């Protein structure tokens, strides 16, 4: 039997007699209870309507409804439940679970608010709570914004604790003892006389019990799993080639396809000639995809890829400027009143501070910084598998937003959400790319031509790189005044197309107010500079753009922290000390002090060694990084990177370190060599020979320290990225005296 059929069976398993004695637990209370999608199938007559835990004869399965793209989220979400439910780690099974608004992410909108994470005032906290209401209303089961842990921290512990209380009650009924005499241990309820009943055995009784609402969570001091470095649930599968990504989904009669869309992004297909392609080996059909491009259907992905190369096209022109230079002109021309999007930081009077300087002890510095478009290039090229049969559609895709897939499938096929089943697989990288819907929509459109047969649509790497939703290009203009050992004034103006407008437009959600991501990681930095202004300009959209690991912080961290460094050097003070002097936020100070110690910042190095520091507060996480480079005769060698981060509460220290390490390498790769350019309307870089990233030979030693001084728990998938580029730039300056204001650095300097 093909794997697809196994999948189908598994998705119906909860309705089958195999777990007729099964029970689903969980906790969700948000004024009004939400549906439990685990109970979608009528055979299961459940009285408990809660969505995170399934117990059947085989044991406990935890629903971990955030997508696993490498960040280890399934492991930590499972640990939140397992801690409260007293499960032994080795027995845990997890499933991503179905697409459902019940699993909406209530924390993801927080970063977009015009309140600094350091602002814990009544107003800021009230508005933060309010964002949870539209989040619920939108019902987006989105994985992104380093928000999964923030969202789940209480929710999933409560689910575990609630289930535990019900299982104890069930055991009390069976054993006819007072429930206060019972305790739980490794998947069992145990009585004072030593009787043990497994959770599986208790499930049939438990399902008749209404869960209590007065649940106590364990004290942090009593945690057995949380706070420890746990072996990742997906590790063995990922080291043995048995982990299933959507590109690996198999089925009987599976057809294979690829797409070739207009490289002038968003423009139409005028005409094409597939006469050579259709007669090639293995090719079954070439389909016009809504006059936007074509799909080739074949008996093997390779036949489809080959045939796609043998189709000639007439494409319509791009709806945006045809070259990178022209695009940067548009950005440059956006620094005007008309394009002002926000001025979220306004302290003192920057204009007067800059105009009226006393040259005897003050210095003014002005300049412009520049960053290019970037691609996501996840290791797994975009793909999805779709089967449409008898008024039902199944979609297998690594994705960051399954509820949006349901909406898109509904729009394309006219099927009702009940008949749209999304299987969210492991992702071979996401970085924001898999929150987009294009690759899934195309696969659904193609599957409408192959009804009754499953079809897997795999993009070539070339299609993937040239048809991304890119990290936007951006420019920054700054004016600053340095004075005796400090920074007196900073005016930072940031111009960038709006990621949110581009994204929300594709989802038909209107955007009101400013796009905070244009100024993210610049306006809310905890520096006390006397005259301080950060203004955002919203540049017209050109290439389609989207979230790219750390979003606006990916460029603004570079802008802000390079400028701070320039001003610190100009004021004659050590740039690390300058930051410490200007920052009052306790957790932020602590990460800077920690990283200084890790790197022995104050120990003098030889002249050709340079240390650069950068600090960024993004997604609520203060991160300080120090990069150590050597200026060799052949170029810059990155020797060491030191990082200190504060996540408030560290649930899995080793995984947090791994995420920070990953974020650093992601950020350094882009800073050193990442650049997407456009010529004649088309993206010029097609594959890894032109759009590469750090390899083993350029990987520095990396040390990470995780602190817990922050006020609340935070996510760590993204915050490691933003300081990497400015710390590298600042280190290059320290080692060479050369201040590079444009990324990627390899346009100005060699790396070895």
């Amino acid at each position, binding site marked *: 039997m093909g794997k697809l059929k196994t999948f189908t069976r598994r998705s119906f398993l909860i309705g089958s007699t195999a777990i007729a004695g099964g029970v689903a637990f969980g906790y969700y209370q948000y004024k009004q209870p939400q549906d439990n999608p685990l109970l979608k199938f009528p055979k299961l007559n459940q009285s408990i309507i809660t969505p995170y835990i399934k117990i059947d004869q085989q044991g406990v399965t935890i629903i971990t409804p955030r997508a696993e793209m490498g960040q280890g989220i399934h492991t930590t979400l499972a640990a939140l439940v397992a801690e409260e439910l007293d499960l032994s780690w080795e027995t845990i099974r997890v499933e991503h679970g179905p697409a459902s608004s019940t699993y909406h992410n209530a924390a993801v909108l927080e970063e977009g608010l015009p309140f600094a994470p350091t602002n814990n005032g009544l107003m800021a906290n009230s508005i933060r709570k309010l964002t949870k209401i539209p989040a619920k209303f939108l019902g987006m089961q989105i994985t992104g914004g380093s928000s999964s842990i923030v969202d789940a921290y209480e929710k999933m512990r409560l689910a575990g604790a609630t289930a535990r209380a019900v299982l104890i009650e069930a055991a009390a009924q069976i054993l006819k003892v007072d429930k206060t005499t019972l305790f739980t241990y490794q998947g069992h309820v145990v009585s004072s006389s030593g009787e043990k009943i497994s959770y599986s055995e208790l499930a049939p009784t438990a399902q008749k019990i209404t869960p209590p609402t007065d649940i106590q969570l364990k004290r942090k001091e009593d945690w057995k799993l949380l706070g420890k470095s746990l072996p990742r649930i997906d590790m063995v599968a990922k080291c043995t080639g048995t982990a299933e990504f959507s590109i690996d989904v198999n089925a009987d009669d599976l057809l294979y396809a690829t797409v070739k869309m207009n490289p002038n992004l968003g423009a139409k297909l005028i005409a094409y000639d597939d006469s050579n392609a259709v007669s090639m080996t293995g090719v079954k059909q070439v389909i016009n995809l809504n006059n936007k491009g074509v799909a080739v259907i074949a008996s093997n992905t390779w036949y489809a890829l080959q045939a796609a190369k043998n189709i000639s096209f007439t494409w319509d022109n791009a709806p945006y400027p045809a070259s990178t230079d022209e695009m940067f002109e548009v950005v440059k021309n956006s620094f005007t009143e008309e394009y002002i999007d926000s001025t979220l930081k306004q302290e003192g009077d920057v204009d007067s501070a800059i105009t009226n300087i006393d040259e005897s002890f003050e210095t003014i510095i002005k300049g412009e910084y520049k960053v290019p478009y970037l691609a996501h290039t996840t*290791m797994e090229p975009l793909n999805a598998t779709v089967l449409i049969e008898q008024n039902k559609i199944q979609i297998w895709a690594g994705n960051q937003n399954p509820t949006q897939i349901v909406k898109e499938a509904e729009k394309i096929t006219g099927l009702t959400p009940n008949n749209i089943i999304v299987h969210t697989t492991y992702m071979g990288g996401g970085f924001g790319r898999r929150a987009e819907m294009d690759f899934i929509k195309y696969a659904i459109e193609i599957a409408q031509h192959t009804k009754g047969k499953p079809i897997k649509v795999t993009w070539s790497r070339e299609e993937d790189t040239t048809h991304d939703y890119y990290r936007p290009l951006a420019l920054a203009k700054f004016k600053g005044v340095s004075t005796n050992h400090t920074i007196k004034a900073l005016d930072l103006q940031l111009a960038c197309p709006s990621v949110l407008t581009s994204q929300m437009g594709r989802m038909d959600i209107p955007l009101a107010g400013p796009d905070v991501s244009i100024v993210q990681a610049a306006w809310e930095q905890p520096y006390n500079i006397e005259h301080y202004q950060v203004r955002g300009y919203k540049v017209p959209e050109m290439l389609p753009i989207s979230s790219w690991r750390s979003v606006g912080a990916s460029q603004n961290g570079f802008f802000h922290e390079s400028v701070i460094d320039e001003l610190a050097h100009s004021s004659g003070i050590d740039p690390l000390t300058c930051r410490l002097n200007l920052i009052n936020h306790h957790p932020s100070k602590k990460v800077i002090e920690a990283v200084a110690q890790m790197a022995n910042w104050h120990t003098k190095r030889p002249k050709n060694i340079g240390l650069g520091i950068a600090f960024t507060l993004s997604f609520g996480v203060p991160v300080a990084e120090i990069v150590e480079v050597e200026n060799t005769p052949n170029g810059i060698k990155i020797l060491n990177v030191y990082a200190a981060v504060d996540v408030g509460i560290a649930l899995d220290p080793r995984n947090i370190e791994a995420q920070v390490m990953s974020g650093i390498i992601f950020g350094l790769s882009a800073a050193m060599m990442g650049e997407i350019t456009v010529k004649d309307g088309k993206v010029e870089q097609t594959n890894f020979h032109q759009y590469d990233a750090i390899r*083993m030979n350029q*990987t520095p030693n990396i040390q990470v320290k995780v602190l817990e001084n922050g006020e609340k728990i935070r996510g760590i998938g993204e915050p490691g990225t933003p300081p990497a580029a400015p710390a590298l730039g600042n280190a290059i300056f320290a080692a060479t005296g050369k201040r590079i204001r444009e990324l990627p650095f390899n346009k100005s300097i060699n790396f070895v």
Partner: protein
Amino acid sequence: MDIKVNGKTHNLVVDNDMPLLWVLRDELNIKGPKYGCGIAMCGACTVHIGKIAVRSCTFPVGQVYDDITTIEGLGTPSAMHIVQRAWVEHQVAQCGYCQPGQIMSAVALLTKNTSPTDSDIDNAMSGNLCRCGTYPKIRAAIKTAAINIIQEKHTMSLIGTSAEGDSNG
């Protein structure tokens, strides 16, 4: 045409110039080797032909000259290869997509060189791209595996058997 993969012979009816990767994945349903770039630039598709690591995405199936081993042939979740065990010990994988290729490159390296230096590791592994940036852990896992291979060989020689079966790529 016949090819032998992980000890099993398969008869194929495909174009001779079809890259081995697509034979493995779409014809034989062996999904460990991954498609990443199609131009031998990322190493996600790495398999062994004999004991040599090759990029199967550009290697025509018609030119296969020896038996093929993929990650599935190296070890299984319940009986992992010594290098896979080191990978788990160091918790290397994040998204995991490139790791089958990384492990196959590492096994090929350790088959020739049981005490690789940092620069040997750089040379053998720099063809394998990882967008999650797991390189520091890969380096550590290779070093652990190297020590374990030597220790197991030593143990095996003391009890008079060969460790070849385990480290055989």
